[in-house]
């Protein structure tokens, strides 16, 4: 199961924007920790780790970040991304695996339980990222004011944190039946 989905602005040394790492949208599916504050801290901790890995990978690949907004999901196939683990207690009670993907000025992450199907998780994340980038333009500020658009996509593609084995046709059927997100 996916414990959380996070959309963040990595900030930091990226030439596009500077400033601290910010969570722009997050959805939790796992057991709620004690108190609301702790959940936000958990998600921020994940976001910071993602931002750090993002910057490190960008540095090591030697490639400059993509200057323009990708128009369709296809470029996300080669977008920077990766996997890492967070140890038990820091910040989730048990060990988790995070899969992340970076696009222009934003990054996406799924926090998964251990032994999750990571091939499926990566694919789902790419799908979510692509749909979100297409719907929310520009992604950063827009998602702040349109959590419903993000919720709609998540409810469809990752309902209650369940990763789905969706073929292209199933995906089309899902989106056809569900209708487009509102303007």
């Amino acid at each position, binding site marked *: *199961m996916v414990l959380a989905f996070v959309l963040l*602005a990595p*900030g930091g040394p990226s030439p*596009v*924007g500077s*400033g601290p790492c*910010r969570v722009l*949208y997050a959805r939790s599916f*796992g*057991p*709620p920790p*004690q108190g*609301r*504050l702790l959940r*936000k801290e958990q998600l921020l901790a994940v976001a910071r780790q993602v931002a750090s890995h993002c910057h*490190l*990978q960008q*540095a*090591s690949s*030697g490639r400059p970040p993509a200057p323009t907004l990708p128009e369709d999901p296809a470029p996300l196939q*080669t977008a920077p991304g*990766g*996997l*890492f*683990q967070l*140890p038990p207690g820091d910040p989730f009670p048990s060990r988790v695996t995070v899969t992340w993907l970076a696009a*222009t*000025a*934003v990054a996406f992450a799924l926090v998964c339980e251990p032994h999750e*199907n*990571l*091939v*499926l998780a990566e*694919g789902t994340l790419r799908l979510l990222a692509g749909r979100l980038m297409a719907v929310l333009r*520009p*992604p*950063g*500020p827009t998602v*702040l*004011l349109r*959590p*419903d658009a993000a*919720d*709609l996509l998540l*409810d469809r593609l990752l*309902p*209650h*944190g*369940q*990763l*789905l*084995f*969706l*073929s*292209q*046709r*199933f995906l089309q*059927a899902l989106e*056809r039946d569900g209708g487009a997100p*509102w303007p």
Partner: protein
Amino acid sequence: MGTAAAESFLKQAREVQEDELSRFAARVAAQLQGPEPGPEAADCLQRLHLVLAASKSPRQLDAQLMELLQAVLCSPKCPEQIQLLCAAVLREMSPCDGLHLSCHRIHDTRLLSLVSSVLLAQGEEKAEVSAVGQRILKALEGRLPEGQSSRYLLPILSNVISLSPEALTEEQTNVVSKKMADWLRYASTQQGVAQPSGGFFSNPRARQPGPVTEVDGAIATDFFTVLSLGQHYTEDQWLNMQTFSMLRKWLLCYGGKEMNTPSSGDKSETDRSVMSVVPTSSASSRLLPPKERLREKAFEYCQRLIEQSNRQALKKADGDLQKACLTEAVTIMDIICKQDSSYVYRAASFLKILHGRISGDATYARALLPIAQFFLNHGEMAAVDSDAIYNHLFTDIPAQLFHNSSLAFEFILFCKDNSQLFAETSSIFRQSFPNLFKFLAWNSPPLIAEFVDILPFLLDAGTAIEIFHLLLDLPCLTAALDVQMRSSSLPSSERAACDPAVKPAACLEAFRSPLHRSAFQYLLRVESVSEDFQERLIPLRQLLGSLASSPRVTQCADTVPVLLELFFSVVAEFADASLINQLVVLVLQRSDQLYEIPAFKDDVHRVLSSQLVMLCKLRPALIVELSRELLEFSGTVSNIQNKEPIFTHVVWAIGEYMSVSYDKRCTVEQINRFFETLEAVLFEVTQVRPQASIPNYAPRAITVLMTALTKLAARSQDLIPRVSLFLSKMRTFVQSPAVTSVYCEEDREEILTRATELMNLLKMPSVAQFVFTPSVDVARTRFQKEVNDTLPSALRIVTRLLEPAPGFVPG
């Protein structure tokens, strides 16, 4: 750009004051109370959500608004967008006081899903989770009202059992297992019809849909799976897809012998020791209990998926799905075999064939891991020779695919999960550690934490030396891998070079030249070798110098100090005398055979020097046994410049441990020999040539030399006059113009003070002997960066003794 705008929104939202929020909440309430909440209501809710989400500390919303949100969420006429926003706000406020929401009276399954998302976010109230679970079960068992789809239900159930597996009784899990078996195996193989209520595909005449197809376009000839394609899908086909999506979790939770055991590792199933070679036929399977029947259908489903993955998908996305399905199918088969060993024989032969099919295909490399895991778990029972599988996995895969970061990550996790395998010395797992380090060398940031966990399992008396060298050469390995990749003919832009700006033409040539071939081959070896070919790497390190500043190499270099410290802490636990001595000699040797990355060398020297002292503490006798090497090292003045930390710590160790109380074999001759060597160095270092300028020797080196000489003299008292004479000249040294221009005042003070203290001490030889020849007491010294930590207090006592201070009592 976008980030600045986002930052500004967040700031505004955070700074909304309590009273402003109350006013806004009232406005929202007014909007929601209207007959049909519209776009303005949506806008308000969106802003409200932002204010709540952006605040670090919880905000308060008044009870009336909370009531309204719940009511609007559940009202049938409310637009979907408003419902979503109400749910989002309620989740943001969770855990909510006085939540009245209940799922029991909701019949719309889509709304049920939305309300469940709020209820499941509430917190530790298992009762709420359980209530949601019961409602979903009721919906699954009964007939749904007209127009309702069951496709919303299973994901909710999946979430429920993750949060609270005990929410379902055994009877209930049996009921669901039975349905799942049917959904998996007997979903329709005809495509669904289009919704008649309009849309692109609507057609008043009921068109006969065709059969579903495979991913390559062929007509499907067997039962429906997630890899079956259609234009529209029927309800049972949706349930098929969702059942498979949660199947692994369900089996882990409820498939074992004991109820609600989350782990599948229980061995209780092995008491069914009779292996059934004859597969259970479908006819008799109706008679199986629900759990067993689900297992059987699940197994068949997995077999079918594996067969379907052999087809060439027309769409890339479907090809990716095939790979995900393959991984999942093998994993589920593994779980089924753990729960019922009568499946092992069938599964093993099937998976062996699968392995044969995909082992040559790099795009299927990740699927090799669950296959290997299966054979590790069950290979013995199946009497299948799986060595070829492990060999291929550990020998070929890392060498070819080290740059695939997802594979690298999963591979290392696989090693962590099976760390007990590395305990066997002769096994392929243990022997292939050079290959494993390639993953780390290329993908350092995500893998370093995982490597810290597996390194202890790789280390033993047989591998320690080789791994020591490997760790020191890790960034060099990164560079070599880069050269290897550049020289291979694959043009894929994903395999980005270390640093495109650098054109290491010399490296590429070297890689292809016979002269350096063997060096590259050694560095890039796939297996541990017993011979030591380290000398071959000396010219290679220089050659690869042009890549030393590339980001990937420096990221790798950053991991080395951590690994080195871990290395020594693990080795200290099992190393015998011979290994300790070997390591000390190697530390001295390797200290100037390091890849030329400045910060890297400094960090490594720092770690090696403190670990050197740790080894000396562990086994003080090595000072005597390795006196030749130590004399040579400490007698080389240039070492003070090139490796000051190591030099300083070596000299400290000599002073500290070159004593008969640590090793009976320590003779006066040896003490004198060391004395002469150190004296010569100190002389060289403090020589003031009027014309020439003084190189800047670290003051710490000077003080440690003085102290070591003093200690040695205390043990061989004939040397005392020589030392005292030397120390008395330090004032002249410190005050000479050449020295004042090179050393700062603080450092000169320090040198002079130390010289004075030592001289004073030597005026009382018996005290000096006492201070410098303590009983061997392990707890006495916690060695820190400053080598002379323990000395100052002793010296201060003595200095006060020598000063006229009546009534002072030592101790």
